[in-house]
């Protein structure tokens, strides 16, 4: 067992508790290092891990786009502090103020940094805003539990602008906005027409196993097919490294969800329980994807009861 502060605290429950409960040291600031991937486009690569205190929740990729009208961000990170740091780093990089922040989908590692920006410049799909209003407080509670001081000052904020159209022009730099779904009920992908760069949000995982807490795998496949048909050059995935081919992240994400779908169905049909299903062998060709075991076990939790209800026959006699 790994010894952590939590372990120590739990062990103290029966003893008189003299140590202050919030003894975890204040977090240092986030290190945000943008890497250029195309003309006027930088990617900030998140940690290939789950949300944890050690990474401050900075696990999602963030994109910075320099436009004649100002700086555009795609996603904002996990906390107010991240968003503030991101704003500073992005504006120093481009020399222009942030004029637009897109939130690709409802998950907290992508959208809880928006408190650092004026709500009217933060834009998301209607389904994303609805999802954030519904689940945001619950996400926030979980993030505070996991991240503690990293989250200080972060309140649930909602995007102030609903995306209606399918493109936006920033002084001549045009961004196509694709309203898709599958990773969640509303997933935004952004295509920079000037450089041919696709920013896929969490529809794309690259060298990193896809996460499925709100997934609809059939719709996800349709969205991947739509992205595959775009004719873009490079792709920035939601998690994992930049994909210079523009195709590899799409293929990997599709391969993983196809395998997952089949493997979980076969596990239920074969009589496995959830623990066993979470320990099944991950095929050789998918083992290069980071966090594979972690995401498989999460996916078992997301899908298994539903699959059992669909696949196992009724046996009650009333």
């Amino acid at each position, binding site marked *: *067992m790994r010894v952590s502060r*939590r*372990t120590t605290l*739990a*062990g103290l*429950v*029966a*003893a008189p508790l003299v140590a202050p409960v919030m003894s975890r040291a204040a977090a240092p600031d986030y290190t945000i290092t943008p890497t250029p991937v195309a003309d006027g486009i930088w990617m900030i690569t998140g940690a290939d891990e*789950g949300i944890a205190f050690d990474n401050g929740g900075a696990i999602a990729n963030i994109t910075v786009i320099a436009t004649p009208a100002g700086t555009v961000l795609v996603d904002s990170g996990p906390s107010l502090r991240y968003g503030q740091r991101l704003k500073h780093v992005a504006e120093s990089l481009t020399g222009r103020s942030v004029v637009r922040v897109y939130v690709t989908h409802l998950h907290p590692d992508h959208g809880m940094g928006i408190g650092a920006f004026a709500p009217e410049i933060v834009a998301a799909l209607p389904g994303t805003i609805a999802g954030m209003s519904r689940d945001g407080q619950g996400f926030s*509670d*979980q993030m505070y*539990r996991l991240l503690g001081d990293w989250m200080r000052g972060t309140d649930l904020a909602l995007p102030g602008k609903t995306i209606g159209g399918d493109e936006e022009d920033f002084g001549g730099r045009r961004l196509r906005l694709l309203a898709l779904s599958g990773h969640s009920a509303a997933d935004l992908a952004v295509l920079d027409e000037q450089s041919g760069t696709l920013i896929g949000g969490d529809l794309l995982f690259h060298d990193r196993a896809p996460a499925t*807490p709100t997934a609809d795998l059939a719709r996800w496949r349709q969205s991947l097919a739509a992205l595959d048909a775009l004719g873009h050059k490079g792709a920035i995935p939601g998690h994992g490294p930049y994909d210079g081919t523009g195709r590899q992240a799409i293929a990997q994400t599709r391969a993983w969800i196809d395998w997952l779908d089949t493997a979980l169905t076969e596990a239920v*049909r*074969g*009589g496995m*329980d*959830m*623990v*066993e299903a*979470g*320990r099944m062998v991950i095929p050789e060709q998918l083992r290069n994807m980071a966090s594979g*075991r*972690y995401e498989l*076990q*999460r996916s*078992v*939790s*997301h899908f298994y*009861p539903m699959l*059992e*209800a669909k*696949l*196992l*026959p*009724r*046996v*009650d*006699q*009333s």
Partner: protein
Amino acid sequence: MTQASIRRNGVETRYPPDPLGSPMWTYHAKTVFGEDRVSFDPRVKLSMPDLAENQHCFPVALDAREIGDVRRMVIMADLNPIPLAVDYRPLAGAPYLATRIKLDQRTPVRGAVQRADGSWLVHGGWMDAAGGGCSAPPASRVKGDWAQHLGEMRGAAWPTGPDGTARTRILIRHPMDTGFVPGIPTYNIETLSLTSSTGTVLGEMDIWASVSEDPAFTIMPRAGMGERLAIAARDSNGRDYHASLIVGGGL
């Protein structure tokens, strides 16, 4: 560490020091093991995922097939307000039990098995979990359709091979109310038994409300291909549930 020592009915009983350092170890040991001999043993295989993705539905599998002469199997979580989840007697068959439980906070999760000589072997680990597994309303209460599906049972049995057992999976729709949600009293499945076609009871279990909503169980009773197994369960309102399935009957 010194060995924990308690005095009960004038008799001193010793439990080995808990490798998990749980604040509740001695307290629960008194309740569950009484004056029986207890030791920690890794042959008691308690398997669980590496993380609790859903604190309302956390899978646990207890496999004591390496031990053999097992007459009781208990799954428990020390820091749950309802620490016991399942107490299973595998009367005929292999000592294997998998289910899903609620986790109300970070807690040790343990499996304990009692051998024919009365002694207990225990193993487990800590599991981190978000709060509220026992104190949030079940999904079917929120949705409001629990009564329409109450007691619906699904399942199947697969012959497992040379040992003559059948991997048997049983799922029952039930809210499994803990009593910790305001306005919703305790309401849970309390017992379940499995009987062969000749009337032999193959296994029986006591079940607490710390088992997840819509309980699911995997057990391995002795049963051959084509045999019909009868399942009977009862909840805390005295409602009976019956099901029957055929080993190898297909899906």
